[in-house]
């Protein structure tokens, strides 16, 4: 069993671009999208990121649409809820207690656009950059080594347990373990406790395997390759343009 984001992170057309570049582009763009007081920039960001993901990185559009559908639906729901419940200026749309608020609609749409802008940046990072590369970049911003070591070990273990958990789940389904709420909680409880015990046994075995290879308390990571200046300049240029965009569109409202 595999997590699709992880699979694509290793198999996409942007594999050769240094992870630091992809990560900083994604995060800086994400921040600027959030800073924008107008929905224009977030929407542009969402479009640019989506096009990059599908056309440049080559993630199948069918998969990407499915991937983005959940946050889109959630964002849209937020828009509606905010328009209906979070406002002080009633509009002419609706009737007595069910009324669309203009300011609610405005906040809702802004939030919706930021969700789309931010989420597509997140999607860009997770679909183009393997998570272990991301964690290694964290060392540059002085995240303590022990966290990175544990996270990298955890990354590997997640996939081992995912496989086990899904097989156990199937084995329980075979014996009708999820037929009622009561049996579901019991089955899930048994699955979780079993997985917990196995995870500890696994921890012990992994420790033995590490000892076999002279583990001395530290888990070394390979040096990360230095980033090409060309990429840094490109990213900076993009972000400055975007920042200017944020500034000039600051007062524009769509709704």
């Amino acid at each position, binding site marked *: 069993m595999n997590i699709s*984001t992880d699979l694509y992170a290793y198999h996409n057309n942007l594999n050769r671009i240094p992870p630091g570049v992809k990560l900083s582009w994604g995060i800086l763009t994400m921040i600027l999208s959030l800073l924008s007081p107008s929905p224009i920039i977030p929407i542009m960001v969402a479009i640019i990121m989506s096009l990059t993901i599908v056309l440049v990185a080559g993630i199948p559009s069918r998969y990407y649409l499915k991937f983005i559908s959940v946050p889109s639906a959630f964002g849209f729901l*937020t828009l509606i809820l905010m328009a209906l419940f979070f406002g002080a200026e009633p509009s002419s749309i609706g009737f007595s207690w069910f009324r669309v608020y203009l300011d609610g609609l405005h906040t809702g749409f802004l939030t919706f656009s930021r969700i789309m802008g931010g989420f597509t940046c997140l999607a860009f990072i997770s679909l183009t950059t393997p998570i272990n590369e991301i964690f290694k970049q964290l060392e540059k911003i002085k995240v303590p080594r022990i966290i990175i070591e*544990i996270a990298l070990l955890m990354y590997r273990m997640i996939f081992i347990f995912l496989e086990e958990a899904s097989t156990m789940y199937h084995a329980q389904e075979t014996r009708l373990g999820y037929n009622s709420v009561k049996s579901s909680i019991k089955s899930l409880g048994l699955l979780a406790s079993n997985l917990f015990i196995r995870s500890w046994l696994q921890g012990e075995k992994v420790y033995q395997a590490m000892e076999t290879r002279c583990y001395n308390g530290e*888990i070394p990571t390979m040096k990360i390759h230095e980033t090409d200046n060309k990429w840094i300049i490109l990213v900076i240029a993009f972000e400055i343009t975007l920042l200017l965009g944020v500034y000039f569109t600051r007062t524009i409202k769509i709704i």
Partner: protein
Amino acid sequence: MHIMEGFLPWQWCILWYAISLPVIIYGITRIKKVADELPESKPLLAVSGAFIFILSSLKMPSVTGSCSHPTGNGLGAILFGPWITSVMAAIVLIFQALLLAHGGLTTLGANIFSMGIIGPVFAWLTYKGSLKLNLPTSIAVFLAAFIGDVMTYVTTSFQLALAFPIPNVMIATSKFMLIFAYTQIPLGIAEGLLTVVVFENILKL
């Protein structure tokens, strides 16, 4: 209950990062201490974190029929105490954001605060308190996981209300709580029961 990427205005993102960071840093010093004493603690913490991740990606049928996800933080707090759990929860939240697109990066600070700090701290306090009151262990475990879940959900609602205080924080909080109560209360009960089953089975072995 994850706050999605892009949902919180930037001022609040910074605030929650600022509040969560010291706790995480303290948690890291605790982990370092443990790791220095026991070399096998790194793999053990890693497998525990992976376990919490898997648990939280399991679909859990709640009584209302909707599906949701257990957090596993109550269990973590009972087993490791709240500080180490906070760090593990923070790492798990990053994995969830990047692998499953649950939560986000700008909202990470806020999510760490509600799910990685408030949840475990209350779970742990409830657990210790219940044991002091001589409640049976299974009840203590249930209450800890349940309260941990409920407090996470109250905190999230409060965080959202602070960001969107319309017409004011109090009313907005209650609005958000109302919107989420439908899934979160049954989920809290389910997680409580689940944690009891897990805890009892672990003890049996």
